[in-house]
């Protein structure tokens, strides 16, 4: 999966909670910080990205809800990967 595709999947899951604009800018900013820029995203990079986003979501949603949103994003990414 490319970084752009991964960002789109994660943004779609997070948007109902923090909005499309914030979800996209947060995900892209974390991708940049984590060096997720190549042609494909590794499992480790996905874990690191979701970990960072989960930490940020805590502020708005609390730990439990944030964990369930991260799990949802992980499932969506896995489903996307499987459909390729």
């Amino acid at each position, binding site marked *: 999966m490319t970084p752009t595709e991964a960002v789109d999947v994660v943004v779609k899951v997070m*948007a*109902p*909670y*923090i*909005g*499309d*604009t*914030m979800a996209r*800018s*947060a995900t892209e*900013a*974390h991708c940049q*910080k984590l060096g997720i820029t190549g042609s494909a995203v590794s499992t480790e990079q996905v874990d690191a990205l979701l970990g*960072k986003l989960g*930490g*940020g979501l*805590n*502020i*708005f*949603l*609390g*730990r439990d*809800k944030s964990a369930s949103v991260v799990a949802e994003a992980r499932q969506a990414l896995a489903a996307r990967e499987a459909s390729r």
Partner: protein
Amino acid sequence: MSDDRRFESAPWVVLGVAVATFVGWAAFPGTTLYTQVLTPHRLLALAAVLKLVYLLAGTAWAFACRDHLEPDNPARPAWFLLSLGLLANFAGQLCLAPFQVFRNETPFPSVADIFYVLAYPFLIASLLVLLKAYRESGFPIGSLLERTLILAGVGALAAVVAVPILTPVAATGGPLLDRILTVAYPVLDLVLLLPLALLLRIALKLRGSRAGEVWVLILSGIVFLCAGDIFFAYFQSLGETHLDPFVHATFVLAYGLVAGGAHRQLQLLRS
């Protein structure tokens, strides 16, 4: 419309009707409705009760939000401080309510002002803690230059608005304590506006989401709180008491919006 949806929207309808009633009072004070049915004394009592209800509900919901967040969550102290700020406002309103309900008067200054002034450090601290929490979350809060420009813009705008309004307020006669308090409220509001402006920028980025709804409600409530204080200072010092209904409408709306925002956040945390 489903029963749940109706139940959800009922408090907003009540808030809208209440605000419209007070605005109507200011606009058409001589009509039969406002001279025979909704007399000034009844409306003052109604405003007192509504403010108490919204402030108590807001305090309880903000505290419940704090309770639903983990001890190490950086947003937890912000909700606690917000609940303390609302509680201080509730205590102030509780001091005024007996005078307003039973004697149709609002003493100023009074012991209530101690609580109203006390509310500001809590509210300001709440917004600052929230800003710090956002920054620590790694979510974008804008570049340093962008934030500096927002603060400078709000500061300049506040000065442009505040100076012509507060100059006649400060220049009016009357006891020193009256004048200090009348100027202090809007000045404290202007301090509150600085972190508020930065948070509003973040809230705009959250638009269309559940978290965005929470923050738009709370922050717009605080904007109306600032507006209410400025109206109060201006009308009080210039003796424009016939405009008091606008002050009541603004405060009822402010407290209602903040309470509504805290309730939405609690729903989000419980979902």
